């Protein structure tokens, strides 16, 4: 039996509010299935499971605010006996469900408190028991709900805290995100990054003329919906570079760098009127440019329209922030913790450049690599940029 916990969907996340379960207890689940929706500072996120099994028991109710790391449900592995049978074999105290599990970025979960004992004949939901323990409510003051169960709303009624309906939260026009909440999430992550991460920066100006000509020729032959933006080959080149420099691709955990075994590139995506979100394209180094274009388009749509998944927000190994057309020449990006590297690209613009002794007009892009000094040094960052430049200079090889 494994515990399915509230995932950390970013360095800044402390808790999420469960919106709904999409699977009911007893249902078989497969790795990658979306089993719940959680409302976060970044809007509603679809939560996936990471193993096959049976959703055995649900420990949280819709409407409940749940800290990162707390158990949401139990998942029984295929072939494992059901919980009742197991319980009969080996009785367990109820509070065992609260054993803290500490993913690197998770805040410590509240310690197991003395839960009110189960009263025979009265069913109390686990979430309700937790709230009772947290608020030290006298169980005798609780009224049983209309369904014969003491749930969250009954406990909240007893402690005088009416549940806040989700609809009551202010929302922006973009997929129900509260702009204030999103700004707070960005602020928390970036304050942490600026406090904790000893950043270094290296920059390189890259001649993108060949890339842009290659793309224009390619796009001229294609139907409009199959055309590529330069963001797609750029993403591929960045992903291949991180694959080539595994010492820059990963996370910092308890002060030590842990290389990732895949390349999941977080993409900084602006959400109009709200801020920024950095969901990742998983295994970005394993997809060709056309696939990356499709994935990027899909990711941008979901970042703005809803439907981002927990894996995309929790499994990034490095980030790319691409300012795009008619913005600014360059930027000094801030690393998204616990990652250790971010690549920032300015706009591409025509500027004077020296080629074989002659000053000529070329399409130039300034790329900045920000690294975490706890994991690498500027020289390594410079090597990374040099490799990236060589890939971008030979677009037909990408």
């Amino acid at each position, binding site marked *: 039996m494994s515990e399915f916990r509230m995932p950390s969907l970013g360095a800044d996340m402390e808790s999420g509010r469960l919106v709904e379960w999409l699977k009911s207890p007893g249902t078989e689940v497969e790795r990658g299935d979306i089993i719940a929706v959680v409302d976060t500072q970044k809007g509603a996120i679809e939560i996936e499971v990471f193993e096959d099994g049976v959703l055995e028991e649900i420990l949280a109710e819709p409407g409940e605010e749940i800290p990162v790391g707390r158990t949401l449900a139990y998942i029984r592995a295929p072939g494992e006996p059901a919980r009742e049978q197991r319980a009969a074999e080996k009785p367990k105290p109820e509070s065992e469900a609260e054993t803290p599990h500490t993913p690197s970025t998770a805040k410590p979960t509240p310690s197991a408190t003395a839960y009110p004992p189960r009263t025979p004949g009265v069913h109390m939901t686990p979430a309700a028991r937790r709230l009772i323990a947290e608020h030290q409510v006298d169980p005798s003051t609780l009224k049983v709900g209309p369904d014969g169960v003491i749930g969250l709303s009954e406990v909240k009624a007893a402690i005088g805290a009416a549940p806040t309906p989700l609809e009551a939260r202010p929302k922006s026009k973009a997929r129900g995100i509260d702009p204030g909440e999103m700004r707070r999430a960005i602020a928390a992550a970036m304050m942490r990054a600026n406090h904790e991460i000893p950043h270094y920066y290296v920059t390189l100006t890259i001649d993108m003329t060949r890339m842009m000509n290659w793309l224009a020729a390619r796009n*001229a032959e294609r139907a409009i919906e199959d055309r590529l933006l330069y963001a797609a080959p750029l993403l591929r080149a960045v992903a291949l570079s991180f694959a080539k420099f595994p010492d820059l691709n990963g996370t910092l955990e308890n002060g030590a760098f842990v290389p990732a075994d895949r390349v999941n590139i977080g993409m900084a995506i602006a959400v*109009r009127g709200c801020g920024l979100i950095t969901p990742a394209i998983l295994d970005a180094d394993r997809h060709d440019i056309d696939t990356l274009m499709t994935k990027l388009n899909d990711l941008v749509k979901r970042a703005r329209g809803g439907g981002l998944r927990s894996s995309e927000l929790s499994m990034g190994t490095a980030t790319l922030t691409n300012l795009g*057309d008619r913005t600014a020449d360059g930027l000094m990006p801030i690393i998204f913790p616990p990652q250790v590297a971010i690549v920032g690209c300015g706009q591409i613009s025509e500027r004077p450049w020296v080629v074989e002794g002659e000053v000529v007009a070329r399409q130039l892009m300034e790329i900045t690599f920000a690294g975490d000094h706890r994991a690498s040094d500027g020289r390594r960052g410079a090597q990374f940029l040099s490799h990236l430049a060589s890939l971008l200079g030979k677009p037909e090889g990408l």
Partner: protein
Amino acid sequence: MAQEYEKIVKDALLSVAPDLEGEEIVPDETFRDQFEIDSIDFLNYVIGLSKATGLDIPEVDYSELESLQGAVAYLRRRKASMGF
């Protein structure tokens, strides 16, 4: 005709940025400057225009589609050259 083209352009823009519903559009200012429209939004907007009009829009023409006024003029010209 101009009104019809204006509706096509507005619909294509709103389909990529539904949150702009009800916003006032300044006709001669680019969508990018007014509404934080980025390259991906813009590409999808052009795809929308192409689908709505049946026109094949080459990439070199994209710059003409960046404002409401520019896009309406472009659609009118292209359609006129097709004999409509």
